[in-house]
């Protein structure tokens, strides 16, 4: 279990923000921090990993205290050993894919994990390539594999998929889930993509101005459990067209675009780009073998 109790005054472009949050994360959970940019999500992750020092508070992981301002405990980043996947991947440009992974090996660590991770991340053919020659999705896989070399118990993902196209995102989301389960990690994700959050996380914390304003299971959090409808998806409004007396709303769900007919009472509330829930009774769809 990870218990965070952090206070920190942060200076940003928008002025000064007083971060003050309490978070409890169960071991083995996949947790998402959600919220506007500048809400303190990345700062929270940096404080957990020791890259940023809180003004006061405590960080406890399991039975170990990583930080305690009263007892003057501040475990070095090097000793916290969290797997951290940065938004810009932070691959070492002077090293090949394999060397990037090997660098992360700990003293006397069994080297077989390198081969295992290269294979798991489907990087075998790319292992001699330098990072600059890789595509975004490939870089992401290297960064993730590298973060796992030291066998961390906590994996931190700071908007890991935001720079990728949709197809690659869907593929890597599945990959993240597999990694999370296979290595029995406690994973903390920062993401803005509701579909992604619902798909991946057990629990969501919403941050605003440095405080937790809402938490819950992913499905509860976004109100997806609020109807008995079983045929439901979340997606993004792409287009709203008026046709006759009705409106046709195009919604992007995963990599499919679906169309939903709607009355103007609902259509008037919607804007292109809105995140929406699309639901129907399980009794209505037809199903056919392909």
């Amino acid at each position: 279990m990870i218990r965070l109790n952090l206070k920190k005054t942060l200076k940003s472009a928008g002025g000064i923000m007083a971060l003050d949050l309490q978070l409890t994360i169960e071991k083995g959970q996949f947790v998402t921090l959600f919220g506007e940019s500048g809400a303190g999500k990345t700062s929270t992750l940096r404080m957990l990993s020791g890259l940023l020092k809180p003004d006061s508070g405590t960080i406890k992981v399991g039975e170990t205290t990583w930080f305690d301002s009263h007892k003057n405990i501040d475990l070095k980043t090097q000793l916290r050993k969290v797997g951290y996947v940065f938004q810009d991947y932070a691959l070492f440009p002077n090293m090949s894919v394999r060397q990037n992974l090997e660098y992360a090996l700990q003293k006397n660590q069994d080297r077989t994990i390198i081969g295992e991770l290269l294979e798991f991340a489907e990087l075998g053919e790319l292992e001699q390539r330098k990072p600059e020659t890789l595509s975004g999705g490939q870089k992401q896989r290297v960064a993730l594999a590298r973060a796992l070399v030291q066998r961390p118990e906590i994996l931190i993902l700071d908007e890991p998929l935001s720079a990728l196209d949709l197809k690659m995102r869907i593929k890597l989301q599945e990959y993240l889930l597999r990694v999370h389960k296979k290595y029995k990690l406690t994973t903390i994700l920062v993401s803005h993509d509701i579909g992604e959050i619902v798909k991946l996380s057990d629990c969501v914390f919403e941050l605003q101005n440095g405080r937790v304003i809402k938490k819950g299971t992913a499905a509860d959090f976004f109100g997806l459990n609020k109807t008995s409808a079983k045929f439901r998806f979340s997606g993004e409004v792409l287009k709203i067209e008026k046709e006759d007396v009705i409106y046709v709303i195009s919604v992007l769900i995963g990599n499919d675009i679906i169309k939903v007919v709607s009355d103007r009472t609902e259509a008037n509330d919607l804007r292109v780009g809105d995140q929406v829930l699309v639901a129907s009774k399980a009794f209505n769809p037809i199903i056919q073998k392909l």
Partner: protein
Amino acid sequence: MDWQPLVLTFKLAVVTTAILFVISIPIANWLSSTRSKIRPVLETLVSMPLVLPPTVLGFYMLVAFSPENAFGSWLNEWLGIRLIFSFEGLVVASVIYSLPFMVQPIQAGLSSLPSTLKEASYTMGKSKMTTLLKILLPNIKPSLLTGIVLSFAHTVGEFGVVLMIGGNMPGKTKVASIAIYDEVEALNYAAANSYSLILFSVTFVILLLVYLTNGGYFKRFAQ
């Protein structure tokens, strides 16, 4: 022609550059990562030789290192080092005089690297030293090369400081730039020309190699 001043010049440049390389990396690393309040003061001190007349620097070093003063006599009595009118003195003066030419490129190179590189290394349990040697420095090779070459070339070309602190002692402190001055004074233009031409050519070739290696020069103009 007397080759001794040329040999002395390049010996001085090699020794100075080597010492500068070793001491500038920690200084540049500290400057590029610290948020300390004394950072601007240290940056200013490092940059002073860029704008100060070399004679000013030479004068103060002459005064400080003179055995008639406290510091100079302490050096002389306890360590047996005489820094004025000696090769060692020239090295010390050159190191101080060329410091910004080594520190600034390295500092700029380190600052240009995304901070996530070293943070990623720290999260993997790697020490600051390991991170510096294996991640940071290998990724700023062009900056290191620029620093080395600029310091070398600057040391080859220095005159004022050398004259002030080293004087003109053949085989000890008479470097090429002093020799040129000497020959001109003696109206021996042919010898002055030989020294000058060699210095000119060597400096030109070194700088050209840097630009070719770092590539940026041709890339910029090819666009």
